[in-house]
């Protein structure tokens, strides 16, 4: 039985997979990785199913020891990670030998870094998912962020790990990495593409111009429930009564005072604010890499473009050449 020992947890480190869909009637939000593209790639780098549970770190990473060793990959943002003091590369897999220590620092790029380990993390699933929902204290490791001294088991998630091509061929396991071109194409965006929200016509032309013409700053109090934005207020026009309704991931709701909030992975399942726009599916992973004080803008696209962009992105993620054996570094 392999384990990972938390020597220090970092600012906010949780177990996440691709979340739990289908429990909206109970008020349960999907949760899951804030940057699912990074999680999926990290899992593939170590030969896991894309949905295997991994550790999501936020802004400042932790320090972890692997008493029995592990095959791991780091994806997402650059947290200046070192293995026994030697820098290791993002977006590639490598072996950690028994007893070695992996140390994460503060971010040098976006908000989140993923530590994916071969076999995934063995926590008791809640409604079919290992994801942590912090507000309700459900899922993940005891429903909470990791603490110093926690020990998590690896490699018994029940999710079949695919054999790595190099292992299957009987060769010495080599490093694998994300193809450079794919990495560029999947880089998180600061210009978020949106489609109109269900109440977009409640906002007069002048308000639309403010929304699409201004840049907004991500506020400090943003979290996995929602990203609060600071910038020019967006006034609502005259309209009917707003009755609470189901809200979708990436919805841009305009709260009291005219300030936008983007609903995120740990979102409330229903809400009573008008939504001016919704981030397109293909750009949702970019939200997971936004840090407080980042400047963002919104760009309107039509329904067909939103669909085409998603199909292209998923095509890239499913492509053979996404991950390559990296013999040069082995």
């Amino acid at each position, binding site marked *: 039985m392999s384990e990972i020992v938390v020597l220090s947890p970092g600012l906010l480190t949780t177990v996440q997979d691709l979340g739990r869909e289908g429990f*909206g009637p109970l008020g*349960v939000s999907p949760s899951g990785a804030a940057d699912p593209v990074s999680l999926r790639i990290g899992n593939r780098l170590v030969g896991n199913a894309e949905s295997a549970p991994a550790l999501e770190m936020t802004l400042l990473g932790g320090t972890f020891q692997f008493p029995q060793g592990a095959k791991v990959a780091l994806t997402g943002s650059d947290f200046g990670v070192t293995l026994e003091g030697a820098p290791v590369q993002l977006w590639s897999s490598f072996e950690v030998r028994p007893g070695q220590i992996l140390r994460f620092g503060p971010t040098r790029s976006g908000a989140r870094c993923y530590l994916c380990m071969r076999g995934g993390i063995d926590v008791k699933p809640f409604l079919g998912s290992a994801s942590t929902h912090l507000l*309700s204290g459900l899922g993940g490791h005891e429903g909470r962020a990791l603490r110093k001294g926690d020990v998590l088991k690896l490699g018994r998630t029940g999710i079949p790990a695919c054999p790595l091509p190099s292992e299957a061929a009987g060769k010495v396991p080599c490093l694998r990495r994300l193809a450079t071109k794919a990495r560029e194409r999947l880089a998180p965006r600061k210009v978020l593409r949106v489609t109109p929200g269900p109440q977009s016509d409640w906002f007069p032309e002048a308000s639309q111009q403010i929304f699409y013409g201004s840049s907004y700053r991500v506020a400090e109090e943003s979290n996995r429930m929602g990203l609060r934005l600071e910038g020019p207020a967006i006034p609502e026009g005259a309209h009917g009564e707003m009755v609470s*309704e*189901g809200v979708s991931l990436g919805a841009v709701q305009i709260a009291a005072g005219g300030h936008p909030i983007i609903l995120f992975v740990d979102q409330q399942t229903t809400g009573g604010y008008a939504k001016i726009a919704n981030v397109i599916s293909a750009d949702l992973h970019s939200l997971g890499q936004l840090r407080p004080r980042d400047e963002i803008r919104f760009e309107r696209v039509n329904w067909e473009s939103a669909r085409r962009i998603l199909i292209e992105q998923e095509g890239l993620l499913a492509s053979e050449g996404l991950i390559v054996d990296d013999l040069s570094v082995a």
Partner: protein
Amino acid sequence: MGMEGKCKARFERASDQSLLVYFGQKITVQANEQARRLLRLLELVPIAGVRNLHPAYCSLLVKFDPLKLRYEELEEQLNGLLRRSEEIELPQPREVEIPVCYGGEFGPDLDDVAALRGIAPRRVIELHSSRSYLVYFLGFVPGFAYLGELPEALVTPRLATPRKRVPAGSVGIAGNQTGVYPFATPGGWRLLGRTPVSMFRTDREGLSLVSIGDRVRFVPVSQERFAELGRA
């Protein structure tokens, strides 16, 4: 259900992976029943590619996989289901009693509500526990039931500044709604009391104490009874 009060369903795109079905724009029992009927139909006759459902007062948000289902196809399939809306039986509503210890530290807003409405705090308790409420839907956080509607004499706006942390089990009111906070969360409802009963438990069949369409009645209990029930 008869045809009176029945609204034609209206579709609205909410995002590139979700669609809202509206049954009117007002909180009515009829519109809510139509949302519950469509929810029930989608549970009994699932549409391939539908990932999640978020019922609310008079609408249902349908989340789908845009790679498996086109919006136009979904709309067509939903229209097919809506034509069968009257055929299906809704689950038999359960009558759920929730014990509440009103006032004091458990209900810090009881006296304010009484003052705002010009009635005695004792009368607030009587009125709040005087009727059974419909569970319109669960939302916000796991197991949070939106219950209505309150007796007119208790209708009070939510707090101007929400509390940063409302203790789990707190029973609150806002507008003509009432509800119980299942977890310690931020919240802006005015708190009348607290229940020792868990609204959402992972070791229980169905998880949530109440389901959409159920009826809820609040039963006043003493501090001693609250403590006993809390230990049970």
